[in-house]
């Protein structure tokens, strides 16, 4: 059995282009955790997040031949994940006039999607998820990229196609809101 785990991303991409499904599966394995973090943080846990997560990799697969390696695979996937998540949030907005309703649904789906993630206190996770879902999408996206994925402010600005100043001001406002909601566990 061929060991794909030691192969570089660009080699896996070449193999995937020439029809090797195992090579593409290795790319999915490598990046699904990071994409889950982005998509679930943006949308809340549930079926929608799973679907958008799958769409991220399908879009990537369709664009394999156009991928020129100007950014890393992770950054490329992150960009797709953020865009698809924002699209999904816009779609939801048409159905849910009040944001709290979407949050309620996210809460209902929470248990199901998180069964596999043992070892991190459930209540803390719920609180963090609620805090994230209470932010407007434009604030949530900067928090996800900067604080959760660890991109620099400059990289965050580039991915979101925003000026650095805008990213900084959004981070500042989002932190205030997070501090307010997370107060019970950070005091």
């Amino acid at each position, binding site marked *: 059995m061929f060991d794909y785990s030691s192969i570089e991303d660009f080699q896996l991409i070449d193999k995937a282009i020439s029809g090797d499904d195992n090579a593409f599966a290795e790319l*999915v394995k490598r990046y699904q*955790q990071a994409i889950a973090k982005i998509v679930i*943080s943006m949308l809340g846990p549930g079926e929608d997040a799973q679907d958008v997560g799958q769409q991220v990799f399908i879009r990537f*697969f369709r664009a394999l031949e156009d991928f020129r390696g100007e950014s890393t695979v992770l950054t490329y996937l992150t960009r797709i994940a953020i865009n698809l998540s924002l699209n999904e949030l816009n779609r939801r907005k048409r159905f849910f006039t009040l944001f709290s309703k979407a949050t309620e649904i996210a809460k209902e789906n929470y248990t199901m*999607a998180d069964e*596999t993630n043992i070892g*991190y206190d459930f209540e803390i996770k719920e609180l963090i998820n609620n805090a994230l879902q209470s932010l407007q999408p434009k604030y949530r996206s900067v928090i996800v990229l900067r604080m959760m994925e660890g991109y620099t402010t400059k990289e965050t600005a580039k991915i979101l196609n925003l000026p650095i100043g805008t990213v900084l001001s959004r981070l500042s406002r989002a932190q205030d809101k997070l501090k307010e909601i997370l107060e019970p566990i*950070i005091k």
Partner: protein
Amino acid sequence: MKNILKASFDTELTPDQTLGLNNALKNSPELEAEKIKLNKIRLLMKNYSPVFSNEFLDQVMYKIREERRLKASRTLVIAFQRIAFPLLAAASVVLLFSILKSGDLSMESLIGISSLNSENLPHFLLFNY
């Protein structure tokens, strides 16, 4: 000073701002407590690691195989279009030419032997064939 403290996590401060912030942190327990809170928020966010379901990989790969099948059938359709349409066009031109030349649509006229009869068959075979 709180704004500078918040900004210090995400951008490089000027030497003056850094100095001012460090002094303020030493002299203000409130600001120091604020820094601890902001650090905790960042740590919580960093450690928040939701995951997809266990079937995620299989579901993605199933859809990828579907994509490949779809792509292959699309390639076949495109190849067919590229070959079939020019052939059809060429056949139509030949047919039209034949109709215009002979004035009828009989099989003989289509294959170009409308004037053939048994008397001039040797001539046709010798000079035209």
